[in-house]
């Protein structure tokens, strides 16, 4: 269907004697149209349409992944943004982490910006045996810690993944919770505990 559309578009453009519209020109026009098509509302200002390098590179279909070298560049860039806790403590309270994993509020124009955001982990991941209402966009994290252990290396990886998912997988669907200021350092500590603490429901 798309091919037909593009072929048709090409024919019309040729007939009109114009140069064909490049993909980049279409992207630029789309951005200009979007900027004229939204109103600021609440905490959601128009600068949310200003893409950083990662968002720009990742605005593509899943079926057309980034070339390997570009993906590596994006991962390196995002890896450099990870901030590990100054005191080295990466594990907080898994009970608080569970609340964060359940909550989907935050950053919408309909949300109160004074209240803390949730991580909404369950929207995309299976995490515990008891919560059956989980999504499947991300992989199951059930027994995440039990399978990997609780070494410092695992803690650092987990912390980094939650802080900035693109450090390990360019164009991941998962938000960059620390990098983009969705979750605080304390909240990420609690979420890391939810994943790694042997007492957490994730590891039962």
């Amino acid at each position, binding site marked *: 269907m798309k091919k037909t559309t593009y072929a048709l578009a090409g024919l019309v453009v040729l007939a009109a004697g114009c140069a064909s519209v490049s993909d980049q020109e279409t992207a630029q026009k789309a951005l200009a149209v979007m900027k004229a098509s939204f109103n600021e509302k609440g905490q*959601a200002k128009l600068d949310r349409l200003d893409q950083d390098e990662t968002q720009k590179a990742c605005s593509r279909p899943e079926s057309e992944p980034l070339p390997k070298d570009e993906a590596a560049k994006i991962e390196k860039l995002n890896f450099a943004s990870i901030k590990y806790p100054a005191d080295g403590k990466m594990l907080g309270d898994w009970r608080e982490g569970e609340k964060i994993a359940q909550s989907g509020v935050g950053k919408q124009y309909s949300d109160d910006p004074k209240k803390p955001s949730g991580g909404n982990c369950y929207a995309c991941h299976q995490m515990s045996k008891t919560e059956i209402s989980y999504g499947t*966009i991300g992989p199951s994290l059930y027994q995440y810690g039990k399978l990997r252990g609780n070494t410092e290396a695992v803690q650092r990886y987990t912390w980094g993944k939650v802080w900035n998912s693109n450090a390990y997988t360019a164009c991941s669907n998962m938000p960059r919770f620390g990098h983009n200021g969705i979750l605080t350092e304390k909240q990420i500590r609690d979420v890391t505990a939810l994943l790694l603490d042997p007492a957490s429901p994730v590891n039962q």
Partner: protein
Amino acid sequence: MNRTLKIASVLLAAAVAGPAMPQSAVDEIAKYRLQLQDGNPADLWEARGEDLWKQKRGPKNVSLEQCDLGKGPGVVKGAYAELPRYFADADRVMDLETRLVHCMVTLQGFKQADITKRPFGGPGSRSDYEALGAWITSEAKGYTMAVPMSHPKEQEAFRLGEKMFFFRGGPHDFACATCHGQTGKRIRLQDLPNLTERGDAQRAYTTWPAYRVSQGELRTFQWRLNDCFRQQRFPDLKFTSEASIALTTFLAKNADGGKFNAPAIKR
């Protein structure tokens, strides 16, 4: 979501002993959806919409019956299955709501600013677009989706809409494609259509507008896009904006060949 979850948990508590498996919850929700099909309050919106279409209104005191929805003045039957499309009199691509605004202004003499204040209904306020949309789309029930692509501006709208679909932005890096670009995924227990895949796109697009049980409102496609962008953490999508029309063109075209079946009823 809350309502669905509550229903799911009630059903599970009643029916399942031992560890609950998600698949059974999904099945029960599917059953619940099937039961909803029995009576659709969208009828009420459709009746009001037909009245609004035929009533003499506005400074010029004329009805909308001469409004051209793309198949000639006054032709409503099947018109929605061929929208959005290019309209020569406005020299642009329009979706249904945009065309209705155009007709209310040009035929009935309304001022655009006055008639676009309430695009969506809420507690204590009704939207004429939701009523008109309900009736006009009900007149396309059973028609096959066939969105025209012969005009260069239709082709451009499709290409722009496609770019917007994959555009990632905001604090969460979300694009439409984040939730609607893969097959067989869900958020919590809500199945997500892959809007780049023909079968899913057809099933999704041909069932909007829909009466939303959880909101007690009939919602049009403009509302669907607006609320998706809210959850995407984007700013507020302007009613009948060029981006909304481009995105609708992309999604409607992807549903080509599907049998139109709305207003539907959804949780």
